[in-house]
């Protein structure tokens, strides 16, 4: 199968067969690429947004758990102050909830393919919540000294020192929860948008495919179909009126060689006819 034709002297030129094969393979590869891109992109975007939404829901649950644990812890402290009897209160559950919460937010932030201003704000809120919790726990550790001390009024300590820390912690937790809720709303909206976005690259490459098909159609029409029609029309003229076959076009491809061949055959035919007529006349 000859894909290249030697063009007389220097360079090999593409044969007609090679041109069509190359053109169709190009279009096929573009279309194949577009379908692969669409599938991969949709999968990627859908996974990314689903993970974000799931992460938001998990963060809200963890924040609520943290709130419940700290509420209970804070009430236990109030109980102990009322009874003036110190007993160590475990707060491991709250610590773990906070650790989980903080770590998961940081993990999401650090593994995000890109960081939006909203994500940065979320991380800043999580960091400040962490600090606020630590501050509250450090102050709450003073409970044993406060109950044992004769100089410190435990109620004053509770309402004047511990409660503001607790309120600060609560307000920061609430701010973080509100922010995650708004993130959740926005991510749910993005889920729909991500569908449209994921098909864009596919649409672009399909567009390119269509452009190539149109170009191919143009090249076939101007380079092959129109010359064939011209050759046919000239051949018909020759057959009907006996006029010379005078179809010419540029190029050195197979069609051009075919045209040259037809021209030669027609010329020979005309010459033969002339000689036949001469012979008849003689």
């Amino acid at each position, binding site marked *: 199968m000859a894909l290249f034709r030697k063009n007389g002297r220097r360079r090999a030129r593409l044969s007609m067969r090679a041109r069509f094969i*190359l053109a169709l393979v190009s279009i096929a590869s573009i279309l194949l690429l577009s379908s692969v891109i669409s599938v991969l992109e949709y999968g990627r975007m859908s996974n990314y947004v689903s993970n974000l939404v799931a992460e938001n829901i998990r963060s809200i649950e963890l924040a609520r758990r943290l709130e419940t644990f700290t509420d209970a812890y804070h009430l236990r402290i109030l109980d102990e102050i009322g009874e003036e009897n110190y007993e160590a209160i475990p707060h491991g559950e709250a610590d773990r909830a906070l650790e989980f919460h903080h770590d998961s937010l940081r993990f999401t932030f650090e593994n995000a393919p890109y960081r*939006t201003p909203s994500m940065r704000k979320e991380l800043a809120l999580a960091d400040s919540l962490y600090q606020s919790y630590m501050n509250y726990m450090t102050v709450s550790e003073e409970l044993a000294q406060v109950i044992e001390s004769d100089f410190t009024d435990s109620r004053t300590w509770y309402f004047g020192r511990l409660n503001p820390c607790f309120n600060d912690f609560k307000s920061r937790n609430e701010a973080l929860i509100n922010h995650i809720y708004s993130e959740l709303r926005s991510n749910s909206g993005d889920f729909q948008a991500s569908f449209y976005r994921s098909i864009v690259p596919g649409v672009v490459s399909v567009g390119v495919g269509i452009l*190539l098909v149109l170009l191919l159609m*143009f090249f076939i029409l101007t380079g092959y179909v129109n010359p064939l029609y011209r050759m046919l029309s000239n051949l018909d003229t020759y057959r009907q009126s006996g006029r010379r076959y005078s179809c010419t076009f540029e190029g050195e491809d197979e069609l051009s060689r075919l045209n040259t061949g037809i021209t030669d055959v027609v010329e020979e035919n005309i010459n033969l006819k002339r000689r036949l007529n001469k012979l008849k006349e003689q």
Partner: protein
Amino acid sequence: MNLKVVSVNVGRTLLVDAFFMLLCMVLSVLNGMDSAFGPLLISFVITFITGAFPFIFVKRKASEITLKDGYLIIVLSWLLSFIFGMLPYVLWGGEFTLANAWFESVSGFTTTGATILTDIEGLPKSLLLWRSSTHFIGGLGVIMLLLLILPETSPFRFKLSSLEMSSLSKEGYRWRSSKKMYVIVSVYLVLTGLAALGFHLAGMSVFDSVNHAFSACATGGFSTRNESIASFDSVPVDIVCIIFMMLGSTHFGILFSCFATRSLRPLKHPVVKYFYLVTLVFALITSADLLIHGVYDSFPEALLHGTFQITSYISSTGFGSADNAMWPSLASAVMLVAAFQCGCSGSTTGGLKADRMIIAFKAAVNQIKNALYPNSVSRVKVGNTVIEDKAIQPVLIYIILYCFTMLVSLFLLMLCGMNGLDAFSSSLTSVANVGPAIGNLGTMGNFSEISSMAKVILSVDMIMGRVEIYPVLVTLAIIIRRK
């Protein structure tokens, strides 16, 4: 219209784009296949196939290019470069929505340098190089790239020359023959190489210096850092940047003359003198204003940042050595005036260009003289060149069209919900291909918060500014008349 010729020449432009995508892929491989490798590979394949496709059927010796073909080649080359150039962004994802990717691509190829990115440093290096490469390709201009590969004898070549250079600039250097486009390209390449070397010697890494050289010589403005040039916090880097921004906005033919004659005499050309003088005056006014308002404590610091920002705006680059959002109003106004004018023709700068400004000023003075002395014979003369009336008219019409484009986009941006100052400054800096505006959209700001519609309007402004309005209007006229 000869579609074969058009498709082949547009294909050549796409092959140039594909070549740069390939270079970025190589960088990605060197960086251990970063996250942009896949997007760049797919974009390369699509762009290469589309660019090479016409060559399957069209013979290498294309027929002559008519004027209509030429205009269509320019517009289609830009348009397809924007579309194929945004593929790596869209496929990579991140902050690049469809509108954002389009905006970034248009901003890159038109050497505007406005960005929608909030975290530039979060991008993989290969994608950062692609951003800068779009500046490099655009800086040379798809027009010039095409001129290099269009047949020498084409009459269209001369039409394009007159578009890219006013008669004033052409007069300024000796290489007026068909070699002038090669001169411009070689000067551009040498300048980029020197800039990369300069930045590296001033303390930048090789990667940063190449990227910033692409941006500075193309008078683009994309940086690899969130805080642009300010993040380097280095006086040598600022100075190197100022030098190459100025050189990038001086007529390349005149720069070549300086090199060839080994003297600075060609810089005495009236347009260049006017451009440098205006830059100096603007820089001094801005620096004084910054010092008076206490933005900077010392004069050298005010002078450095004032000069940097003025050079950045007047060269249509858009780099930032400081956050100009809170700068006093006089300094901001001077920056906008600088952005309105920009540098010399025959360079990579945008805006109205100093040549047109000087002709318009002289024509205005001449008009006043004629009103005072109606019987006198006076002609517009710049340096030793007498400017014919038929040369003045297109300049004035261009200025009117330029202002009209700005005005229309101002109204449309305000319809999109932008405030008056942001809309005015961003439409001005987009048409002038400067990039950053003033206020919230200043050197340290970005265009991420504006609506998608506003991004599309600004990208149209950038395109109109880059191709100098006429080719777009002529192409539209061709399409309408064909109907």
